């Protein structure tokens, strides 16, 4: 199939970018979106142009590296899907596809479609861990965890840190990501000793990075490739509020 692409091109963090039009003539519907980008880049290299820079790693929907705002939606038109798992069969011959980087003050563009998501790393560094060395995996049932909590913690832990929640949020808020990370540890015994401090630190770092404030539109949970629920945002609010009230 034949596609018209409108892609954000920006040479460097400092340079001004613009949308550039490309046409690709022989796109196979079985290709993934990133394979389509590879074909485009191959063509650009053959023409002597600079290939389009974009993030990717696993191409299996598990690492969270791929991004791209496709036709106005984070990770494209399908729900529960990362860009690497999006396939060209969901587009039609002759379609125009608009491809942009995540847009947020806290996610500055590095080049073309690549953005710097290290703000997420700094939020994790602020408290998204357990300080004590937990050693190797404990015996099953040595540490009793209610099934519901294990399930909720697991659901929260499926967040791959891709940043689609920030990208789609009208406020560029990171609360779905931070909510998932705080929830995951607050629900498990290993997370208890640092539970309050973690909530305060991670929220403070999130605010420092310049993400917006949640207005509960719920857009993030629709676009999240892992289906993280905004219940996690409510839990973060509770955790933070309780921690602040109890703070000495």
């Amino acid at each position: 199939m034949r596609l018209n692409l409108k892609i954000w091109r920006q040479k460097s963090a400092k340079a001004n970018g613009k949308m550039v039009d490309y046409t690709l003539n022989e796109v196979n519907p079985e290709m993934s979106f990133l394979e389509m980008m590879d074909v485009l880049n191959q063509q650009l290299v053959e023409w002597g142009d600079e290939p389009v820079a974009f993030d990717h790693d696993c191409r299996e929907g598990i690492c969270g590296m791929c991004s791209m705002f496709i036709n106005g939606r984070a990770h494209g038109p399908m729900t529960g899907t990362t860009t690497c798992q999006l396939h060209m069969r969901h587009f039609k011959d002759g379609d125009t596809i608009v491809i942009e980087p995540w847009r947020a003050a806290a996610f500055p563009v590095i080049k073309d479609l690549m953005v710097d998501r290290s703000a997420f790393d700094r939020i994790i560094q602020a408290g998204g861990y357990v300080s004590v060395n937990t050693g190797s995996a404990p015996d099953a049932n040595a540490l009793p965890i209610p099934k519901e909590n294990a399930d909720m913690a697991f659901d929260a832990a499926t967040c791959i840190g891709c940043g689609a929640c920030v990208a789609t949020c009208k406020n560029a808020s990171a609360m779905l990501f931070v909510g998932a990370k705080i929830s995951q540890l607050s629900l498990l015994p290993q997370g208890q000793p640092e539970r309050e401090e973690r909530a305060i630190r991670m929220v403070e770092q999130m605010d420092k990075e310049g993400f917006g404030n949640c207005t509960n539109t719920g857009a993030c949970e629709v676009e999240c490739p892992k289906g993280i629920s905004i219940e996690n945002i409510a839990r973060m609010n509770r955790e933070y509020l309780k921690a602040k009230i109890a703070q000495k």
Partner: protein
Amino acid sequence: MSGKTQSGLIKSSIGKKVFMGLTGLFLCLFLAGHLAGNLQLLLPAEVARDQFNAYAKFMTTNPAVKVLSYLTYFSILFHAVDGLYLAWQNKKARPQAYYKKDDAANAGWASRNMAILGTLLLVFIVIHMKSFWYEMHFGSVPMYASVEHGELKDLYTLTVSAFTQWWYVLIYVVSMAVVGFHLWHGFGSGFQSLGMNHPAYTPILNGFGKGFAVVVSVLFAILPIYIYLTSLN
């Protein structure tokens, strides 16, 4: 984990949201009370005049109501300032807009326009308070002697004559639509901000909030329309 963490609750994003939720939900209670009082305007004119004016006197003089009204003034101011500050921060968080963004794909219209709806509400509240609250407290509302309740300020007649102007009715009806949209999202959102989200109760609460938004705004809007239509004959 080490190092200091001691910034105030209100400085944080979540703290500001919690105050939005608290003040917003308190204002929902206020609206319900305000509406119940105003529905007296639907009574037959002879009964309504005395009853409404006596109610207005009670609402402006009773000490317990005074406390509640100060809490309401404070909530409106705090809610407006906090909300507009949050909206300004949110604008700053995305300095460069998308070339193409499909906003309707994943979020409702009301939820995406809370700040605009809120600003319109603020304008309405100023007009509304100038017309009735200011007149009642500081203006010169004529007094008359009622049979049952003694000397009363005639807020009823002031209100009824205000709504004989069609454009005034229009401002009110449009503003009530704004209230409806603000609460369509706001009611449920307030509980989410306070950290309340439960798979069983949240859908019920959100549904109730939408019902509340429709019922409150429609009943409020009926009043000026009713008064206008009655004034025609």
